[in-house]
């Protein structure tokens, strides 16, 4: 699965990277972010595009597994 490392970036940059990666990998991707705004925004974006975003938090970093619904 393609990984997007968006740590250290603030909104809306992680969402832009997610969007680009999903266009190239429509089956799904994994995104790593380090702020709540990005977690929430990417989750909303995934839902809007027909995907599901499962989140896992560890030490202030979130891994979002984005898969087709």
């Amino acid at each position: 699965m393609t990984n997007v490392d968006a740590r250290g970036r603030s909104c809306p940059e992680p969402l832009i990277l997610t969007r680009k990666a999903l266009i190239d990998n429509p089956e799904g991707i994994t995104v790593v972010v380090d702020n709540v705004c990005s977690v929430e925004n990417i989750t909303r974006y995934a839902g809007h595009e027909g995907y599901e975003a499962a989140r896992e938090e560890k030490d202030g970093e979130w891994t979002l597994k984005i898969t087709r619904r």
Partner: protein
Amino acid sequence: MSDVKLTKLAKCAGCGAKVGAGMLQKLLGDLPVKNDPALLVGFERSDDASVYRISDELAIVQTIDFFPPVVDDPVRFGRIAAANALSDIYAMGGEPKVAQNVLMISKAMPDEMVHGILRGGYEKVMEAGAVISGGHSIHGEEPVYGLAVTGFVHPDRVLTNSGAQDGDALILTKPLGVGIYLTAAKAEMLEDEELAQALDQMERLNKAEAMLAFDVHACTDVTGFSLLGHAVEMAEGSQKTLELTASAIPMLPKALELASMGLLPEGMYRNRNFAEAHVELGNVALAFSDVLFDPQTSGGLLIAVAQQDCDALISQLQETCCCAVCIGQVKAQGEKAVILR
């Protein structure tokens, strides 16, 4: 024109750069304050501007507001920053009189860019019927522009955010969603013509002197803390509950769609954290409440006016604040500060 992009020179945009209310309290907490009975409104309450009585007939309203660029067009940035600073005077029921520029320019900015920003500011101050009497400019890391504005108000006619009364109608003078539009523009997911709709709203003066002729009880301008954040402040300051009619709240055409796509500024989440516990959201969709928590730059006025004056005030405001609509009413204080119906 050069290819330097104004917004690329700044880390955060517009009212998003604002230091939070909690932080301010901590910073100001133990500073000595001189008590002066002529200071009618100071910063003990979270109001829009301060008011100082000169005589029984006259008080001055003072405010200062400045921020980093929200848009690449320098003239539009100047207009928005000025409209935003002037709005604090209108929100207190005042009439803007004298303004001074506050300007920080960075090395990367060409002269015509700086000139454009100032020109935009002059346009709006002139439209408000006030004069620019000077200012102060320094060099710095990032562009910043705004104004210190002084206005006049009758000491008995000062409007604060804490006088709302049972049965008052609530009027909002601009549609919501500019924070979301600016975020979408940054993500390059918004057409120029669509962004222009948000910029037009931000440039608009909250020229609301018409309020003086009506039984207006409270007023505040909706900015960084969002509609719901400012509504909670008005409710708590007035010891009332504000009941908002969800379907009546004006929004920019694509605000809901962009919110559901996750194009939300960080400030939206801060506002939600701060105010959500005081609001009964009812069954509105998540994207809808996102828009209600969206931080506004140069947002509209939230006005509490006696119910019987509502329609007449709105029709008077049409000339200057053409988007003014009634969005709810004031009720006796209930469990929550704000409820949505």
